[in-house]
């Protein structure tokens, strides 16, 4: 098993795609940044000096120091620790968003593009309708019914935002369907299901990956905005957006309460953007070159 992975990595790292990617300086920067965030998220328990919900009224709103690297917030909690645990949340949000949006959008796009006709019309209509639905209202509705919480808000937003995935997969599928290897697959006896998932889907993955890396930052920003408005993460969850919300009241007295969460939100979104740019440049021309 290990050998198989080693071999895959070896063949991947010597592949042309990998070499092309490494040349893309901004992409590499994005990758490094993202890896850093991932590292922080994974090792939060070890890096954070304090618990994220450890309240200490005697240390309220302290500026950054050796003890509190990023300072403390209005309840005396260590901001650095909260940032570090917040990374987990941010990445968790990104993952959940992609899973839901791609999970719904990609199969729908495949089916619409593969079958065409009235199936396509139906799916496209539903997609466009839901896309037009304002997510905030849906989030409000869900929060009213299910109660507030980051996960609920994320689900609410994702459930009506899968349209870009459907659209791009549908378009890609349509262009792939005109290629002869699809007819050849049918000639060999492949079922429709098999054709869609073995032949069409792998050829749409490049577009999906690029889309994912570019939508994650907007998802993060969107949910942090919702948290900022008070709908998402509830205290004491160290969601960066929630931290921004809490910090706004002390922006002049203790700006560090807002600066650090804002900075990390920006960096995370940026890292996904850079990575996505590079991936798009690498994956698309490669397809053309091939």
């Amino acid at each position, binding site marked *: 098993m290990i050998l198989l992975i080693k071999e895959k990595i070896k063949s991947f790292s010597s592949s042309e795609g990998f070499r092309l990617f490494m040349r893309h300086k901004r992409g590499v920067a994005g990758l490094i940044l993202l890896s850093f965030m991932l590292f922080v998220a994974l090792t939060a328990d070890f890096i954070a000096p304090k618990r994220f919900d450890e309240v200490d009224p005697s240390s309220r709103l302290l500026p950054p120091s050796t003890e509190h690297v990023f300072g403390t917030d209005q309840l005396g909690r260590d901001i650095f620790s909260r940032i570090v645990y917040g990374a987990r949340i941010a990445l968790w949000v990104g993952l959940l968003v992609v899973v839901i949006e791609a999970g719904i959008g990609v199969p729908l796009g495949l089916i619409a593009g593969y079958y065409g006709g009235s199936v396509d019309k139906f799916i496209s209509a539903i997609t466009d309708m839901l896309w037009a639905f304002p997510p905030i209202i849906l989030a409000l509705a869900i929060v009213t019914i299910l109660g507030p919480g980051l996960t609920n808000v994320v689900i609410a937003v994702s459930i009506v935002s899968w349209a870009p995935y459907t659209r791009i997969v549908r378009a890609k599928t349509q262009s792939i369907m005109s290629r*002869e290897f699809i007819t*050849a*697959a*049918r*000639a060999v*006896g492949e079922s429709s299901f098999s054709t869609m998932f073995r032949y069409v889907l792998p050829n749409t993955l490049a577009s999906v990956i690029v889309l994912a890396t570019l939508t994650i930052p907007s998802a993060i920003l969107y949910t942090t905005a919702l948290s900022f408005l008070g709908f998402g993460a509830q205290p004491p969850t160290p969601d960066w957006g929630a931290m921004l919300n809490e910090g706004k009241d002390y922006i002049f007295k203790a700006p560090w309460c807002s600066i650090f969460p804002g900075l990390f939100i920006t960096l995370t979104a940026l890292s996904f953007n850079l990575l996505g740019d590079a991936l798009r440049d690498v994956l698309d021309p490669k397809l053309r070159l091939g």
Partner: protein
Amino acid sequence: MVTELLIVRDLKKYFEFRKGFFTKTQYVRAVDGVSFSVERGTTLGVVGESGSGKTTLGLTVLRLIEPTSGDIVFNGSNVMHLNRKELKNFRRSTGIVFQDPYSSLNPRMRVKEILERPLKIHTEDDSETRLEKIVKTLEEVGLSSEHLMRYPHELSGGQQQRVAIARAIILRPLLVVLDEPTSSLDVSVQAQILNLLLELQSRHELTYIFITHDLLTAKHVSDFIMVMYLGKVVEYSTTQEVFGNPRHPYTVSLLSSVPMPDPKLRGRKRVEVVGEPPSPLNPPKGCRYHPRCPYATEVCRVKEPELLEFSKKHFVACHRVGELSFDEFLRDVSSFLSE
């Protein structure tokens, strides 16, 4: 009767073409009533230009495009209405090779996987047996196990086409449809592939439907030739007859137009072809070839000619078939083609 692997009767494929919401649906009559048969172990060459319907015919016969109407009898059974299992068996006994080798291979699949799929779908072989069969087939088409893990873009055009051929024959089909299999290849590679196809045919008793616009290639590989124009068959006979004694003006004009690779034939007498092939949306009334035919008469403009047996096994669809003589155009060419 038993020797005919494929019998096609009055096959039609019409494509719907709707211009606007309120206009009536128009039809592209891509294949408009084609009948023919193919004997086991032989090659039927289907010749025509763009718009003739030859590619649609190839795909429809294999039911990769659903026919609008007609009958297709393959190996004794009518394959027009098959249940899933029967269709699967039909797929197992047929294969197809396309013109553009790169486009016909999944860019995300390695050669091994491309060739393994048919085996996985149709046989119960275990992975070792499958691998054996794959390597054996690769060797038959002139490749080797070193190509197993390659992706299509890592192969040359000729190699890609060999993989496509391997995929088509790996299940030992009875019939293979080849749609311009050598047109996108270089001359020297074309020769290699044609040799390969002929060899495979004799070794495995394959029956070919060879679709091409290149008359000379068709002549080289075919036993019978069927000339198509705008969805209809205009001439159908043995290769010898079609090239030695063509009876339809269109066939003769094709022979006139094909550049012959011998400078001595340069000044030969040719049938002048005027105009462009008309749109298959709106074929001319009467004989579809009449606007471009130098021999057209009144009846040609009005009535569509039937495909009738002119002489033994030689079918022509032309009102004036007995009257016309094309000797002057064929004299020089015939000797060149029959040497």
